[in-house]
């Protein structure tokens, strides 16, 4: 009933939402490469511009996108401080033993922070705009060449999608069981560590039982429908490239080329 929104998918209709998941995955890979190829601020500016464009066309609220950074905020700040303190340079503002604050150090750490932020925002934009199901579809399709070396691509994708499908079901179930035990006076909030761990038992056991029961039921249902894996299966949702994907592809290609050119012709800015 109160369906916990799984992951971060943000359900609106937009240009980015309608892109082929395969393109989005490839775009993310290209983006990560571009970020690490860029060695100067101009290159990063190109990457940032492309990302701002993508966010604007995804219709996901900017605040929501920025919230993704919160999870890695500590890491970002930590590396920034380390970089400032340990990166030596020519223009030194302050020095104490091996610690020093220099112009180059500050620039380098700003550069690093931008890199990390772009990386995190871009990958979370993918999960904001792509449902888990179409993401696994995309991964399956991209991994198809591995079938030649007898890698069970379809089975792997199936395992992924079943696992993803079960997350909201089990989280619902957890809520239900917690409520049932709360109604019987269970208390999950107060008490010391031992008490809290003990309080989990009345949730964990019914939850495990229910997971096994559901797995059994699903297995039986698949068996009853003669599910045989990947052989001769057709797809309900066929992935097709459209004009949007062409635009996305061109944008990605332009970005990578631009970053590479900027690296070649503008070396040593940072």
């Amino acid at each position: 009933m109160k369906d916990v929104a799984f992951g971060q998918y943000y359900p609106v209709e937009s240009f980015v939402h309608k892109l082929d998941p395969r393109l989005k995955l490839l775009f993310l890979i290209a983006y990560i490469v571009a970020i690490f190829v860029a060695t100067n601020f101009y290159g990063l500016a190109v990457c940032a511009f492309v990302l701002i464009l993508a966010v604007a066309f995804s219709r996901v609220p900017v605040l929501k996108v920025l919230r993704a950074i919160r999870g890695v905020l500590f890491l970002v700040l930590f590396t920034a401080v380390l970089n400032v303190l340990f990166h030596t340079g020519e223009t030194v503002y302050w020095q104490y033993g091996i610690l020093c604050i220099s112009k180059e150090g500050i620039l380098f750490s700003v550069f690093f922070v931008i890199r990390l932020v772009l990386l995190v925002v871009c990958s979370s934009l993918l999960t904001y705009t792509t449902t888990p199901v179409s993401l696994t579809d995309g991964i399956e399709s991209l991994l198809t060449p591995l079938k030649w070396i007898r890698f069970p691509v379809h089975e792997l994708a199936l395992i992924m999608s079943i696992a993803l499908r079960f997350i909201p079901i089990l989280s619902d179930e957890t809520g239900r069981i917690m409520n049932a035990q709360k109604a019987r006076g269970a208390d999950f909030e107060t008490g010391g560590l031992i008490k809290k761990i003990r309080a989990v038992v009345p949730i964990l056991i019914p939850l495990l039982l229910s997971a096994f029961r559901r797995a059994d039921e699903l297995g039986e249902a698949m068996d009853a429908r003669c599910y045989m894996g990947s052989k001769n299966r057709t797809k309900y949702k066929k992935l097709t490239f459209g004009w949007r994907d062409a635009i996305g592809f061109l944008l990605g290609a332009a970005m990578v080329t631009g970053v590479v050119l900027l690296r070649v012709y503008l070396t040593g800015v940072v």
Partner: protein
Amino acid sequence: MRIVAEHLSYTYNEGSPFAVRALDDVSLTIEEGEFYGILGHTGSGKSTFVQHLNGLIRVPSSLKKRKKKPKKGQPVPPETVLNVGEFDLTKRDTNFRALRKKVGMVFQYPEYQLFAETVKEDVAFGLKNFAEKGEKPSEEEIGRAVRDALQIVGLDYGEVAEKSPFDLSGGQKRRAAIAGVIVTKPEILVLDEPAAGLDPLGKREIMELLHTLHREWCKTVVIVSHDMDEISENCTRCAVFAEGKVVYDLPPKELFQKGEELTALGLDIPLTAKLVLALKERGITVDCDFTTEDFIQKVLALKGGGA
């Protein structure tokens, strides 16, 4: 304990694109001693409503420290009231533990909440949780309470108490789970689809059990159901929920007079009400209270004093 709700609204995932309005300005009073039925489709808000009754879902105002002041010029929304006996559930400092002891809640498929090693331990779970601090009930007291609870739900203490709850049959598991809720003798017992997934005989047995409980143990019984026959046979009064609102709040006898209107709402009506409607179309009026027994009596009377 009397249940009074006024202008109760609830939205899941408020402020997100997944927002669902589950309750919309619900006002309902359930008197002490009633056997109250709550009817409605899935998603009509009936489960959301009953989960308010023991504070599993909190009235939004009871979670905020300071009340939001309404903006000037806007109409002031009517104040939400939710009282269960002496508990005011719109307040932040309500003692929810004490409330939950008084309001027992049996969820759908309660057998899935069993967890302990023995039936006795599982039934005693609530008893131990609700015990006041420093007043741990003795083994003897627990044993007695568990024995009483198992007996009233129709299980044999000697036979099942030391068994694992997972070794019981389906119907026994449900009874054991219900025993685990009523063991603290709540004044109000709320059950969400208590007979779901049982065969007709099992259903009847559960309903009989509820009547026994209503007579001997819990003053007020509230059942949530979409089975019209269950409601028409058992309840003193019932509410019909549709899209988060209370559409009707009547005794079953009056409610099922409105057979056609209920059908228009997409709800089923009890078999007896269907028969009454069919007979009405043929010009025969049967004035019964829609229980099977009464219906048969009245029809036989019409036929001429019982054949």
